């Protein structure tokens, strides 16, 4: 398996090479084309100059000499032809002679038009680019000025630079290959770092973070990775914390039970205290049972059991729940004031909703003073209802409010569980409310 960087680099190399090769060919073509055009233009200029010196009449020897003088100064071949046979004048006669110009060319020239030709010329036995200018007197073709440059000459000129061109191109190619490789490595290096970090994370090193400065997609990925790592680390911390709290919560009743049990074993408890101690042991056992039940509920609700919604008469449900919590309320002589709309029917999961109400009411009772009153009311709107449970308890400081649904959260850290709570009631309620897509709002007046 090839590395991604190698693949991309290969692709880049192919692109670069193709582009350069194409450019070289194109430049060469353009160069030749332009050179030929330039040569043509020069030849035309010379021919026009020579043509201007022709005064009509017979083409004289002087004129021919004058045109041939041009050869001395330039690399093009210049000559004047006046032999009628060369000019295809005898064409209607079947003459075995290769004329310099053909019949159609003759017609063009007689009309005063110059000719430009490019290609193989039998007379010179080579590829040439040539211009032919007529020397016309009235309508007689007295002669022609013929200028040509062998095309091979142009090609030769171009080929002398080819070696230089190849060297430059090769150098350019190597440079580009090196630069592209380096930049690719630079771009892809953070990916390798990320890979290493992910492996570290998998090995359990949750404090792993990557340091990436780039502002591109890879940078974004690194940032997301860091966020993910933070979340995982927090979750891990929470889990540890939870476990330590749970073990602490369990240890207290167990140590009570264990302590009293040992005292009984060694007959250290006086007879008159025994009834009280038994009572204490039962109470602690109950608390443990409740705690384990609550933990079970928390574990279950975390696995997101399916919510089975159905119609539920709110007033009826409230009354049932109050029957359940009445024994605890009675202990503190707490009374309930219920003002629930009898016609409100909810579409909720019955068990979960009851559990929520029980947990909240238990909490309210627990933190209410003796002889106080708990008000339960509801306000039904078009599609929803607000169930309001108000107690006259001690309340809570605002800063703790966001945390009271956290598991085992204690407003007063020193406070024991003497009030009988497990520290999970509101947390469970919040969770159950959450899975049913309703809101739990806790307020302090």
């Amino acid at each position, binding site marked *: 398996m090839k590395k991604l960087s190698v693949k991309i680099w290969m692709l880049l190399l192919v692109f670069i090479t193709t582009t350069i090769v194409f450019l070289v060919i194109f430049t060469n073509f353009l160069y030749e084309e332009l050179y030929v055009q330039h040569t043509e233009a020069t030849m035309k200029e010379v021919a026009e100059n020579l043509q201007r010196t022709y005064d009509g009449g017979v083409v004289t020897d002087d004129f021919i000499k004058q045109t041939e003088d041009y050869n001395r100064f330039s690399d093009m071949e210049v000559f004047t032809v006046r032999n*009628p*046979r060369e000019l295809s004048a*005898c064409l209607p*006669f*079947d*003459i075995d002679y290769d004329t310099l110009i053909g019949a159609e060319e003759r017609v063009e020239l007689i009309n005063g038009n110059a000719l430009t030709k490019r290609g193989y010329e039998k007379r010179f036995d080579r590829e040439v680019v040539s211009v032919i200018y007529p020397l016309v007197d009235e*309508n*007689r073709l007295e002669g022609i000025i013929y200028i040509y440059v062998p095309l091979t000459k142009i090609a030769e000129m171009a080929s002398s630079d080819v070696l230089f061109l190849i060297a430059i191109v090769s150098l350019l190619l190597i440079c580009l290959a090196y630069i592209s490789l380096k930049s690719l490595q630079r771009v892809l290096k953070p990916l390798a770092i990320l890979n290493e970090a992910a492996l570290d994370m998998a090995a359990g090193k949750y404090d792993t973070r990557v340091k990436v400065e780039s502002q591109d997609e890879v940078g974004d990925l690194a940032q997301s990775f860091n966020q993910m790592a933070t979340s995982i680390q927090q979750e891990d911390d929470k889990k540890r914390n939870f476990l330590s709290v749970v073990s602490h919560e369990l240890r207290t009743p167990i140590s009570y039970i264990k302590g009293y049990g040992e005292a009984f074993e060694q007959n250290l408890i006086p007879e008159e205290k025994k009834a009280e101690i038994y009572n204490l042991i039962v109470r602690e056992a109950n608390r443990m049972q409740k705690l384990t039940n609550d933990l079970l509920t928390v574990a279950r609700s975390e696995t997101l059991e399916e919510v089975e919604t159905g119609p539920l008469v709110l007033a009826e449900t409230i009354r049932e729940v109050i029957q359940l919590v009445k024994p605890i309320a009675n202990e503190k002589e707490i009374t309930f004031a219920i003002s629930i709309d009898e016609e409100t029917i909810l579409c909720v999961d019955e068990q979960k909703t009851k559990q929520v109400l029980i947990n909240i009411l238990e909490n309210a009772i627990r933190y209410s003073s003796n002889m106080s009153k708990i008000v339960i009311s509801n306000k039904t709107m078009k599609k929803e209802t607000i169930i309001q449970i108000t107690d006259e308890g001690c309340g809570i400081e605002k800063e703790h409010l966001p945390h009271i649904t956290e598991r085992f959260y204690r407003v007063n850290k020193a406070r024991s569980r003497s009030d009988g709570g497990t520290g999970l009631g509101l947390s469970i309620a919040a969770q159950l409310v959450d899975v049913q897509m309703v809101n739990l709002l806790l307020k302090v007046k």
Partner: protein
Amino acid sequence: MKKLSILFVLFLLGACGKPSLPSIDPSEKFVASLNVVEGTIDFISEEQEVMESWQLDAAYTGFTLVSDDLLLLYGFTLEEAVLIQLSTGKQLATLDVREGTTFAYAYEENIYIANGKENTVSLFDQKGELLAEAATGNYPMSMIAHDGDLYVVNFKDEILSIFSLNLKEKTKWEIPNSSHGILVSGNELWLGGHGAGSSPNRVIKRYNIKTGELLGEIEAPMMPIHMTKAGNGHIFAVSHGSSTVYEISKTGEVLASMKAGANPFSIATFGDNIVLAGYDDHQLYFIKSGKVTNKLQVGKGPFQLVVREVSK
């Protein structure tokens, strides 16, 4: 309605036969030019106006007047030469020549056809019957008959062949290659030409018509290839290489020269005028007393001229 339908049928019948060419008034004198590029013949009246124009249906490269009312048309690539009656425009006969006809010459009742592919000269009568045939040198072309002899110039050879009128070979003379343009002046045979290779011919050679002895040369640059005898006995020669017309006395002295035409190949005497055909500029030049008196636009590529002087 009935009249109309009859006319229609006649028209159809007319369309079915070979279309005849426009007729030429037998009472008119004319000079005709064969325009080989365009494939037309223009007939020009004494008034120096085009009186009729023939559009030809084959690649004819030459023509000659066989009689006052009979025109022979031939082409190098054609296997038939045709005889056309001028007064009706109808084709009267065909001559089964083979491909390669370079020149035709009519003398009395005879028609001589030179063939540059077969290297023969053939004798036909005016009905198109082949009467005789003889082998020549390479590429026979110019011909002229004089005093019972037929002189045949072999264009791509250095031989002039002399036959009897019924094509019995008599003798041969040595002449330059690419000779063309032949004229009898008194006891002399005058011969022009293009010149072989890259050096153009500049002279008309004068030969003793009986012996073939070279009597002298007349400077007439460049490429004198056609001559005509004028009413005053002077000979006019055209040199196509320099587009020059020379007026030459019977004794071979150049009396005058003038530039005329663009690449002219043919010259003819028509009444008091000398007519010159400019191949490149498609014009006929009428020359009188050493001056161009008129120019007349004809079809493209006028290559040959024939003249009909005698009217009915």
